[in-house]
């Protein structure tokens, strides 16, 4: 009886751990999608497809900052090698080149703070946009893989 309880308990624990990892992958993906949505929202203004809207800019930058502040914690060792549904997954380099990854992560947080300080109108948005995009793509260059 005790043996059955132990075995079932261990299995349940295992299922729980796997579920928690998948849950983390989904949370990480959700955070990246939120970044994309927020960057996209200010980008359509920079491109001239939508009129400049300071409240929307503030909202988008706040959203980016919220993710940037906890960015490195979105990629714990436990999700290494796991792939979410969708187009991309995190390269194993996120963990094998951890110092480099964390430098990029810190650079993202810094860029968002700078953007918040500088973007006050369409002209400053246009001026700041390239730096913000670069911070994303410079990290994606090494640490994101498009699925085959």
């Amino acid at each position, binding site marked *: 009886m005790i043996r059955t309880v132990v075995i079932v308990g261990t299995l349940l624990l295992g299922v729980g751990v796997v579920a928690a990892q998948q849950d983390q992958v989904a949370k990480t993906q959700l955070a990246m999608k939120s*970044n*994309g949505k927020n*960057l996209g929202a200010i980008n359509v203004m920079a491109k001239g497809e939508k009129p400049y809207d300071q409240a929307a800019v503030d909202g988008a930058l706040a959203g980016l900052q919220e993710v940037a502040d906890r960015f490195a914690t979105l990629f714990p060792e436990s999700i290494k090698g796991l792939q979410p549904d969708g187009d991309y997954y995190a390269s194993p380099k996120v963990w094998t080149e951890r110092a480099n990854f964390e430098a990029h992560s810190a650079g993202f947080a810094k860029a968002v703070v700078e953007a918040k300080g500088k973007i006050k109108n369409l002209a400053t948005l246009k001026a700041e946009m390239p730096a913000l*995009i670069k911070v994303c*793509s410079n990290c994606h260059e090494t640490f*994101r*893989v*498009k699925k085959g």
Partner: protein
Amino acid sequence: MPRRIFFVIILAGAAALGVYWWLTAPPIARAVTAAYTPNLANGLTTFNAGGCSSCHAVPGQPDRAKLGGGLAIPSPFGTFYAPNISPDPVDGIGRWSESDFVRAVTEGISPTGFNYFPAFPYTSYAHAKTEDVRDLFAYLKTLAPVSGQVRDHDVPFPFNVRRNIGIWKLLFMDGKPFTPDASRSAQWNRGAYLVNSFGHCAECHSPRNFLGGIISAQRFAGGPNPEGEGWVPNITQKGLSDWSEKDIAYFLETGQMPDGDTAGGLMVRVIRNISQLSPDDRAGIADYLKSLPPVDGPPRPRKAPKEGDKS
């Protein structure tokens, strides 16, 4: 009788060797004799369009003009190491003649007459105008020499036999210069020229066969990343139908996609170069790409999509 058979075999062997030698012999070089005053500004444009620094710049430092080489380029055939193309007379191309350079870039043949591996995208550069290549040479000469030899390629037999590349070229290289399409606009033709010659977009954005040749029916339709993990997107209208010309030009300038996503992987390097071109050149590229008919790429080795999964 056995002696005669022996003789015939020897003769056939010699003939086969002769044919092999003839097939793999480097062709006659494109003549670069006429006097020419190079246009350095156009040389810089050519340098950026060609993405030279993506492979030849010293890795791990930000200066795109420090062309000491050394970047490892993995492939299914082995790992290539980008050579030093700085004007250093010993380790770079400082002692090359203009003809040497034109021949190397457009025909894939070294000054000493051996074939370059097609990891160097001369299959695309072959479509370039000779004047543009001469301008590029003059521009490279203005850059700082970088000393240091790059290590040898790490390519196993039989792919390391450079004479075999002569046959590969006969099979997969169309060395014809670009011919404009008179029925299209000047902008479209400029884009077509940049994409197919210096831009060498098809080199990554097309699937390749087992010998490493581009499958021409699926040109621009994407495929596995030739440098390893991941997938390169389809840039025919199959993949880019919901991108406007402006979206494409903006992406090539900034790395920002219409949906808020940003560029990743090798494309980030490409954008570092293409962002330096003129807006007109990027508009030309966008114009040309929008005109590519939709073509299905190779199937992705992907799990079957789940219910409710859009893609």
